[in-house]
């Protein structure tokens, strides 16, 4: 592998990380919104979200991406690879995030909600001050886990022509006829990213357990 190849792979790493970040940052609030729709049991919308989440959780990202990339232009919506990639990642991760948020909301103690109501908090304030801080803490390990899963599906973005770490490695491998060195280099790029997230998840879980033990 030449220096040029290494630069190409690092560029791939930038693409992987920035697309994952975009997916995570957009997917988190959308997932929360979907979970709130189901939690509040808004008629029709809640049923729609249930089916949406169920279908999206069962759909492989490759299939979803191919659908978005080829079918949207067909119905007159032009889409480039990067926006197809982000849209696919967001749709995929928001469905999983919705389930994490929802299970936190289901476990939220009702008496606190009623206490907030009885001191006269409005719905918005009640949600911001009482519900949100607590469900964030409960959902955090699950959400971080979902983030590491998201990074691990990003190589699939290659089907719409995005050159991420894996795609760069495969290209270099086919150019040099030595596929193993670039692929092992790719492994070396992924491991710290995913490992950092996994360690973060363990750290949060441990701190929460310690806080619970102290309480």
């Amino acid at each position: 592998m030449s220096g040029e190849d290494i630069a190409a792979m690092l560029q791939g790493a930038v693409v992987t990380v920035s697309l994952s970040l975009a997916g995570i940052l957009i997917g988190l609030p959308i997932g929360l919104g979907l979970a709130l729709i189901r939690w509040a049991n808004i008629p029709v919308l809640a049923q729609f979200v249930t089916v949406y989440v169920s279908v999206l959780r069962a759909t492989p990202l490759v299939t979803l991406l191919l659908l978005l990339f080829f079918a949207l232009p067909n119905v007159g919506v032009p889409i480039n690879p990067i926006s197809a990639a982000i849209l696919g990642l967001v749709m995929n991760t928001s469905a999983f995030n919705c389930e994490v948020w929802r299970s936190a909301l289901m476990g939220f103690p009702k008496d606190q909600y009623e206490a907030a109501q009885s001191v006269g908090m409005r719905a918005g304030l009640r949600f911001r001050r009482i519900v949100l801080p607590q469900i964030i803490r409960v959902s955090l390990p699950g959400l971080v886990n979902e983030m590491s899963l998201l990074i691990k599906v990003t190589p699939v973005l290659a089907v719409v022509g995005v050159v991420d770490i894996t795609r760069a490695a495969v290209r270099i491998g086919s150019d040099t006829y030595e596929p193993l060195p670039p692929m092992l280099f790719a492994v070396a790029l992924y491991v710290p990213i995913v490992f950092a997230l996994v360690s973060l998840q363990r750290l949060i879980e441990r701190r929460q357990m310690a806080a619970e033990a102290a309480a």
Partner: protein
Amino acid sequence: MIHDFGIVWSERGLLLSGLANTAILSAFSAIGALLLGAALAPALMARHRAVSWAARGFVDGMRCVPFLLFAYIVYYGFPSFGVRLDNWTTGLAALTLYNAAYMAEILRGAWIVQPREPLEAGVAFGFSGIGLFRRIILPPLLLAAGPVIGNQMIQIIKDSAFLTIIALPELTHAASSIQSRHYVPFAAFITAVFLYWGLCLIIEAGVNSIGRVAEARR
């Protein structure tokens, strides 16, 4: 639009063979991964340092690497060592090895939270070896790990779609070739999405009914 679905219907043979390939591939690798995982789980908890470190290294390594990259390593890397496999074997091997790591972790997680008393009671009642395993250890373990194993099986189905990139003729690949042959992208891929959904619903229903049967017999 209806016409597009008509075209997909006329190509149903291709789509169904893709679906069958996805189902067979997922089923075989789920079984393989579960068996391998069952062998790896005790290794993870082995007293022997070398054994437990090797198992831990494999499991954590797999959990840090994206599946597609691992599939590529098996696909392009193994021939460098003189092992030449076709797409099918490569796909099956990659899917099985990768998910074995996850299955091992799931089984280990279910095992360490099991209470020790029933096991000791079983030994006291004269159970040993396979009888002990089959009657005392396995039922609560499967009950505890069942839903998570079900989730992992859904993950395996979704991972199998990645193998379209190494040209394995599974469901997404079939949808892709229908779309490129007739240019009916929406109809072809949405049909594939709903077929995947159906597969996952079947697994969910299966896990639920196993749970119910086990609950009733408790």
